[in-house]
């Protein structure tokens, strides 16, 4: 496993900023009505997607969720193409036909956001099977929420990955809530990680707001998977900054109880401090990265806004491959 070095740190800090800026922008634009449908924002959870994907190459796969923007950005999807997709433009990564919940870029190893909670588990197992069958050392990361852990697909998929020792790392983003339902209500187990025992694989819970903790734990898990040691569950305790979707009043958030610790942390500020204190970034570099990120997102928005909507005839395209 790579230790955090200067180059990696800059990459991480940029990606974290990209996600935050991207989501803050979408949050704002959404109120103007330019973005159709609904969006689920990843802001607040950046250290999970970035801390994990920092260990991946384009040949490694990830599966994602309805809250997929962060995973996409961390896995290298084009920011402008993503933004255009969210706007429903033909220049979007999916030609405007998928939207926020279905952004995908298979060439980058991004197997798709997924509108079905729990829909990604089996797909990740399939990609893991493929990697094992082709004897590659590539891995698959399956991101999933605390709510998704109660779907039957979780059980079936983790079990299959376990008995076949597939290179799949199940990364749980426990942000305390599934929509308006607390994890402590919906799960019989206290943590998600402890469910790993039901499949004879390791499970670990880390502070998902702490980039370095995620980075370290994910690095170990991914390494282990690359070496053919099989899957594990890595639970990252985190919190979403916004509502479940845009427009959510969030009456269920308590902020005095079990979730407070995670709600109060800003993973990007914390990582910045860490990086500077550990001489992995200078203040100037950090400011520079933050500024570049802002500019990149602004450019993405501009690209999206100036892009054409899909030509009508594309409605009928791509139902089947020829």
């Amino acid at each position, binding site marked *: 496993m790579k230790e955090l070095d200067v180059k990696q740190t800059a990459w991480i800090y940029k990606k974290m900023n990209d996600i935050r800026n991207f989501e803050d922008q979408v949050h704002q634009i959404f109120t103007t009505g330019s973005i159709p*449908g609904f969006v689920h924002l990843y802001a607040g959870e950046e250290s999970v997607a970035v801390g994990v994907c920092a260990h991946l190459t384009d040949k490694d796969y990830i599966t994602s969720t309805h809250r997929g923007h962060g995973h996409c950005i961390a896995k290298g999807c084009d920011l402008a193409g993503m933004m255009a997709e969210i706007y*429903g433009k033909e220049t979007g990564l999916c030609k405007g036909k*998928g*939207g926020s*919940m279905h952004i995908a870029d298979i060439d980058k190893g991004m197997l798709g956001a997924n509108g079905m909670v729990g829909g990604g588990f089996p797909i990740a197992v399939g990609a893991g099977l493929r990697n094992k069958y082709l004897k590659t050392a590539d891995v698959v990361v399956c991101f999933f929420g605390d709510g998704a852990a109660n779907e039957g697909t979780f059980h079936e998929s983790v079990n299959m990955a376990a008995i076949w020792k597939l290179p799949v790392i199940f990364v749980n983003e426990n942000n305390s809530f599934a*929509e308006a339902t*607390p994890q402590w209500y919906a799960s019989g187990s206290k943590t998600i990680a402890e469910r790993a025992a039901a499949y004879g694989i390791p499970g670990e819970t880390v502070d998902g707001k702490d980039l370095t903790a995620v980075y370290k734990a994910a690095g170990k898990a991914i390494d282990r998977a690359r070496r053919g040691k099989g899957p594990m569950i890595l639970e990252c305790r985190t919190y979403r900054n916004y509502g479940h979707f845009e427009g959510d009043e969030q009456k269920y958030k308590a902020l005095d109880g079990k979730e407070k610790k995670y709600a109060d942390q800003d993973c990007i500020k914390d990582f910045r401090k860490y990086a500077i204190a550990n001489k992995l970034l200078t203040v100037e570099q950090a400011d520079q990265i933050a500024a570049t990120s802002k500019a990149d997102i602004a450019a993405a928005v501009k690209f999206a806004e100036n892009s054409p909507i899909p030509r*009508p005839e594309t*409605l009928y395209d791509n*139902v089947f491959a020829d």
Partner: protein
Amino acid sequence: MARRITFMKAINEALDQAMEQDERVILLGEDIAGGADVKHLADKNEDAWGGVFGVTKGLMPKYGRERVIDTPISEMGYMGAAVGAAATGLRPVSELMFNDFIGFCLDTILAQGSKMRYMFGGKAKIPLTVRTCHGAGASAAAQHSGSYYGILGSIPGVKVVVPATPYDAKGLLLAAIKDDNLVIFSEDKTLYGLKDEVPQAAYEVEIGKAKIKRSGTDLTIVTIGKMLYVGLETAEKLAKDGIETEVIDLLTVAPWDQETVLNSVKKTGRLIIIDEANPHNNTATDIASVVSDQVFDYLDGPVKCVCAPNTPVPFATNLEQLYLPNSQRVMETAAELIADLKN
């Protein structure tokens, strides 16, 4: 009956009155209250959401969490639990948030709830209502915009209703909950805000009966759910050309009302069915095949189906609007059928 309420409120009221009337009625679903086990909400006896669209809002505060049950994200589990609760004497109403999630829990309907009575030689009764929503037009993309009432309606032992107005939504839902069978109640999510007159008192609209929403002698248009408005709009336009269109709101898609439809076609000799479902093996084609068979000799032209194309629902707004059947497409179709009338 001057009171006007929304489609959503009509459904909420039906649930409320059904629960008031019968203690055996319970609700199950994801976030149908919301905020379970959140102390500050419990202290104030508040729900957090009342369903993702707010349809069930206020029911938990009134009836408590014993009767308005937030479930984990476990569709097969809680939908199947609703079957089990129904088989053992309760009258559950379970909510499948989007009909597109049917892929996670079809067994509870296909193999269990719909077949138990038959397989058990008549010994079981499954008084279960499944509320769900369908329909494009909300930019919700391919996995949250499908219309699958036709697939569900193909299963023996299942009744499927698709209301188009607040009045019928309330009455059909009350009838569904009273029904001793598995009834799927499929709501078009883009209609939730629609307002119309709805009586306060409880009443039932008969399951299995279509309604003639406009009388006519030249052409029959059968519509499902929201397509009623496309049908009415088209009838309006056709009237300007002197074509009198009979518009029938099907209301129940399984088993659909053959009598009303066949009688109308006997009179008009021409039929268009508007169905937002994908075009194959859907309710429209079923009606077309039955009508073409049963009243063949009355037909002055082919029965026409206007449906969504054979594609998933696209995200981009302009494509989604093209995807949905609209009055222009129905007008074009009608033009073929009534060419002789116009000459």
